């Protein structure tokens, strides 16, 4: 070596955008020293479709279809965020039945999303079996969605002022049956994954973020609650009819990956309870408010947010009084949660980076928009 002073260089490891652990087209540029991560540069934008700009050229009922494509594993929740914002701006009173149905579908979607998370998180940690259990159960939820909205993912079912059409007659019994199966399925995942020695060794104490730090980074949803910050939009700023029913909110105390994982597992159980209560409270009635065919909100601006599976999903709309928004901005929870990645990952092992990224549960459709 010509250079008298020898030194070692960090290895630049390019993880993604085509990598099984990045859950989509996310790219991490890792600088590693052996197996230790020295630095990480996240790259996003591979899935950027300009959704927010596109929204300025669509009327509100068309925007709903664009929102389906943001967080593509929690489509109903996205739709809800949008219609809540528009309804708030227009001051619309949504019929109760529509609200109950929305809550049922959103909570089912939360379960579906968390199931997907639990399965892929197991894959990240190297366990292949839980993913198949969770996909099996998620499929049953998708079947209900398909029967309700006609689509498995891109539902386009919620409307400003209500929902597209009433649910089928057998909706209640079918969901009721599904809930029992889901409870068993969640227990199964819990038994096969949550308390295994190897799994605990991989996730306990890994990727710890303290409560104040989590708040500072703008984390939300399960990732925030795992750090012992009891905040849930459904409780603090109730929308739909969440203030009418009783439900628990799981809150972690360590802020590590295991807490982020288990918070979601417990949340699924709570969601099952919420769906039960919604079904019990549901009564026949109108499903749409009396409105003009094309929603035309008044001049002004509005911010509404809802608790998505991934966190606090906010929609900010500026209206010039026309039938299309003048400006629309989304606060995507995945994007904000992703911001904490560098803090969590630096100093950990490469294998931990995978688990930590998995525990943040990002969906790139929402990060890149």
């Amino acid at each position, binding site marked *: 070596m010509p250079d008298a002073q020898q030194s070692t260089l960090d*290895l*630049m*490891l*390019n993880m993604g955008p085509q*990598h*099984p*652990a990045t859950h989509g087209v996310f790219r991490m540029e890792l600088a590693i020293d052996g*197996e230790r991560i020295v630095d990480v540069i996240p790259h996003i934008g591979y899935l950027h479709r300009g959704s927010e700009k596109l929204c300025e050229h669509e009327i509100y009922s068309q925007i709903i279809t664009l929102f389906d494509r943001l967080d593509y594993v929690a489509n109903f929740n996205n739709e809800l965020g949008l219609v809540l914002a528009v309804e708030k701006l227009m001051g619309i009173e949504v019929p109760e039945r529509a609200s109950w149905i929305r809550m049922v579908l959103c909570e089912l979607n939360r379960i579906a999303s968390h199931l997907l998370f639990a399965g892929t998180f*197991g*894959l*990240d*940690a*190297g*366990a*292949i*079996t839980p993913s*198949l*259990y969770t996909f*099996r159960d998620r499929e049953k939820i998708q079947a209900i969605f398909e029967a309700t909205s006609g689509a498995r993912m891109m539902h386009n079912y919620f409307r400003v002022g209500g929902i597209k059409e009433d649910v089928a007659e057998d909706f209640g019994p079918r969901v009721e049956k599904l809930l029992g199966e889901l409870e068993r399925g969640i227990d199964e995942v819990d038994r*096969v*994954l*949550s*308390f*295994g*020695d*190897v*799994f*605990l*060794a*991989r996730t306990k104490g890994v990727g710890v973020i303290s409560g104040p730090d989590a708040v500072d980074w703008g984390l939300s949803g399960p990732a925030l609650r*795992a750090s012992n910050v*009891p*905040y*849930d939009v459904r*409780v*603090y700023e*109730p929308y739909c009819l969440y*203030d*009418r029913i*009783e*439900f*628990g*909110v*799981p*809150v*972690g*105390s*360590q802020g590590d990956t*295991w*807490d982020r994982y*288990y*918070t979601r597992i*417990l949340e699924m159980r*709570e969601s099952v309870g919420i769906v039960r209560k919604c079904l019990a409270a549901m009564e026949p009635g109108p499903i749409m408010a009396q409105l003009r065919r094309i929603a035309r909100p008044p001049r002004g601006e509005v911010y509404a947010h809802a608790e998505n599976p991934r966190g606090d999903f906010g929609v900010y709309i500026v209206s010039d009084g026309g039938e299309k928004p003048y400006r629309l901005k989304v606060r995507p929870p995945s994007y904000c949660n992703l911001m904490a990645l560098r803090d969590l990952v630096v100093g950990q*092992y*490469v*294998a*931990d980076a*995978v688990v930590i990224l998995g525990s943040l549960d990002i969906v790139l459709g929402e990060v890149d928009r």
Partner: protein
Amino acid sequence: MTFTVADAARTALALVGLFLGLMVVVLFLTWMERKLLARIQQRAGPSLVGPNGLLQPLADAVKLLTKEDLRPAEANRFIFWFAPIAVVLPSFLLWTTIPFAGGLAVRAMELGLIYLIGLSVLEVVGLLLAGWGSASKYSMLGGFRAAAQLVSYEIPIIVVIIAVAVLVQSVDLRHIVAGHTTTIAGRTIAFAGQGGVPLALIMPLGLAIFFIAGLAELGRTPFDIHHAESEVVGGPFVEYSGAHWAAFYLSEYMNTFFISTLAVLLFFGGWSWPSFETLLGATPVWIINALGVAWFLAKVLVVASVIFWFRGTYPRLRIDQLMAFGWQVLVPLSFANLILVAAVVYYGWPIWTLTLISIPVLVGVAWLASRRRADPGKVTTVRMYRRTRRADGEPVLVPNGTPGFANPDEPSTAPSAAPASESAR
């Protein structure tokens, strides 16, 4: 010893037969693993090609062999093409000395165990070559992981094998299975063989170490860090395709089969437990041998399916945890086992004292290892909160005193700061 043309022809024929036999076994093993995993995961598994998908591995093999062989532009040509051979060759040569029944081996060696130890260490060279020669960072990381892992877990395996050899006073696999009598320093030592009592009952500690270290040696779950899909994608094999990738795959399954075979030979009595000679009395040798081979293979498949079962159950350890487990638990344990066996042999204690001592040791270690485990009530740090209303009517979340897992004994941890509040509707 003269070596005639007839000898050479016989050996060549035996090698070809062995290779074809191994191919069939490997194809069957891949099918079995997929079916077993499918069972565990509530899927059907391969089901279309042949009865119950039995021919699926054959179809896969045809596909792999007809695929294009790609080499990354930056890769070193010689190393890249040589690595699969360096991996496959040792894992095939291992088999030449494995006796399948009484006298059935391509070349039964008196120093068989030493030959096996020497060859099985070679595989890491191939993996390292593949990792380095692929000019891919994932490959390199995987290659280095493989080197670190395989070298560390060789030690407990070898020490356990030495312990068996010490107990049996022979490194000949036939002696280990069928017993022998030897004279050392004027003392005659007779090892009855495993026809009556398999070594698993005499040396359960050794078996446990051998099996766990064997899993690591194979790079199978939970020790599959060197080709961890979610981390280094495919490890050393990530850049390979077609026939060369198939070679790695082949060697992997041959090794899985090999470790299972060795476990059966060393600990489960190989072909001679239960002993067909004593069961059937006077029978032609070929019948005894055929039964022995069938029985032997059945046992090997059971061990292999335990390995596959692990794959369906466990997540993957991290590299530091894996190394710590190897060096801090398995290596000391294996040496303790060796010392124990040596003491028993040296002082001429009855052989069952080994069982008496090693079962408590095994149980103690298992207890120590599991002490911090899986009591959900203790482990969980996630608590349920519930909604109440503050005095001014604003909703607020407070802990409801029950932890996430149903455990009604837990005292309420509601902070006193939370104002006296009526619960929400």
